[in-house]
């Protein structure tokens, strides 16, 4: 019955595996070596230069690479604000949509029109980041949508959001939160729907208020989903490439106030042709991402034990 199994497996897997190994596995593997070379991408040969790219990056001989470190700084700001804000808002709406309707026939219902909200809030997630970046670039223009609405209020003197170093990063944060809230709202809603009804029924019999049953039942049971959301949004906050590259002045400006590590990689690749150096920055971004993921997993695991 299982004659020719290995022949069959070879026929089925050879091509897909070849594509996967050539275009996915090999670039990842090469990255760690190319980061140690002076590869420019335009000459066929390159030299092994050891840790020189990293020395340059860290400013061991000469000033450190300001653009990259400003990028790291901004990435860390995004990392502190964007996941927390996105998750807080998304969780709030998920709870509202699912738990806050009227209690018809003794049942907590989703709020009226919840399916409409679910469809609308999710829309940003299906549009390309490129299109959203352009949309918000126009919204935040001096004479764009936001300022033209603000000027309806007498005496308002709105800033030019993207041109002012004090507000530019804020526009990036707002855009990222706006883009992601709907997705996580749907995600948390799905997780809430998986909570056994008996638990909420038991809480209701014990005369728990809605807030109590959310705090003591729904929220703890959502912990794994929150953990996933934190890691995923954290990875996104360490990237943020498309929004920054398309939306901000420069891009990355003004005065490097919005640049991110990924933009530094892109600029060294595209504008300077320093492929080896750009790859070295990719290696650093990779290690920061791994540390973040490990840290989040550990931190949330400990909380679970305490519970």
């Amino acid at each position, binding site marked *: 019955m299982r004659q*020719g*199994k290995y022949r069959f*497996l070879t026929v*089925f897997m050879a091509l897909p595996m070849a*594509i*996967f190994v050539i*275009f*996915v*596995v090999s*670039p*990842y593997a*090469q*990255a760690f070596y190319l980061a140690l070379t002076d*590869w420019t*991408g335009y000459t066929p040969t390159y030299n092994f230069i050891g840790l020189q790219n990293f020395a340059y990056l860290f400013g061991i001989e000469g000033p450190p690479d300001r653009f990259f470190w400003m990028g790291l700084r901004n990435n860390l700001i995004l990392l502190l604000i964007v996941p927390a804000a996105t998750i807080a808002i998304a969780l709030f709406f998920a709870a509202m949509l*699912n738990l*806050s*309707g*009227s*209690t018809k026939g*003794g049942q*907590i*219902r989703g*709020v*009226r029109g919840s399916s409409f*909200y*679910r469809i609308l*809030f*999710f829309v*940003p997630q*299906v*549009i*390309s*980041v*490129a299109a959203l970046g352009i*949309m*918000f670039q126009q*919204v935040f223009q001096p004479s764009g949508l936001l300022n*033209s609405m603000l000027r*309806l209020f007498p005496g308002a003197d709105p800033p030019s959001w993207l041109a002012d170093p004090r507000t530019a990063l804020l526009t990036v944060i707002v855009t990222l939160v706006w883009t992601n809230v*709907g997705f996580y709202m*749907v995600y948390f*809603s*799905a997780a809430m729907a*998986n*909570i056994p*009804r008996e638990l909420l029924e038991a809480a209701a019999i014990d*005369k728990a208020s*809605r807030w109590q049953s959310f705090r003591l039942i729904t929220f703890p049971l959502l912990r794994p989903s929150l953990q*996933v959301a934190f*890691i*995923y949004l954290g990875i996104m906050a360490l*990237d943020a490439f*498309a929004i920054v590259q398309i939306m901000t002045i420069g891009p990355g400006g003004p005065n490097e106030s919005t640049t991110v590590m*990924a933009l530094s990689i*892109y600029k060294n*690749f595209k504008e300077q042709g320093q492929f080896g150096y750009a*790859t070295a920055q*990719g290696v650093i971004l*990779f290690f920061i991402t791994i540390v973040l993921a490990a840290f989040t997993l550990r931190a949330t695991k400990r909380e679970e034990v305490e519970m």
Partner: protein
Amino acid sequence: MTLAAAPPGEQLKLSQETAPIKVGRGERGLTVFTHVFLIGWALIVAIPLIWVLFSSLKTDNEIFVDSWKPPAALQFDNYARAWNASHISQYFFNSLIVVTASVVIVMVLGAMVAYCLARYEFPGRTILRYAFIGAMAVPLFLAIVPLFGVVKGFGLLNTYHGLIAVYVAYAMPFTVFFLTGFFSTLPKEISEAAFVDGAGHYRTFFSVMLPMARPGMISIGIFNALGLWNQYLIPVFLVTDESKFVVPQGLAILAATAGYRSDFSGLFAGLMIGMAPVLVLYLIFQKQIQSGMTAGALK
């Protein structure tokens, strides 16, 4: 670092959570409170999108003076200009070719690999599974510059098949992961029966198992179509020839040059053209897309 949000293949339930509860006081207040916030966020989401639609039908002057106002007269020629003069038609055509081919190929190849992984024992199976999961977790920025070298080495820069190969390669891990879950849930008796009836490995796959995996294939197909249509990072690094640009990349160029050409109405029309296909797809398949993406993107 596998972050499976839900077992692949299992549709996330999006049903409303219901539970009996005593009718509490202040319920009305809660409902009003809820609606104020929900309507508030609905406006925050919808207004910028409606504004893009309005702006795409305005004159340039109307866009700059009192930008919040709806268009006085509908300027449909903005669309004609974006489609022809701004080369959106070319980008659209490029995206269509690359995305269609990539989705079809990755579904076929992904299903083949997933089937082997799900239903056959062979040495190296576990390593392969971990390789796919690992590939989903590692940031693309580590690989993107070396990937340029690989694609260049094959002489595939600025070609359709080069971009298709890369799209297929990067869509493969999740496709395999998702479909492996799907194939392993199919009952074993059916493939046994097919073998007993004299069907070979190939026949069993193509005439029995593949048709049964149809719901999973549709979910992952829509997911890949959306994701690849919106892909920005890969083409920005790999495609330098403007005649081969895909839609998101073309829009970014349009935005960067809208100032010099002082054609902002054309830019907004281009944005609408770029967003329309995914919005239409989303409105038709919104349930599957929401459940597929929440199960999927959080791999």
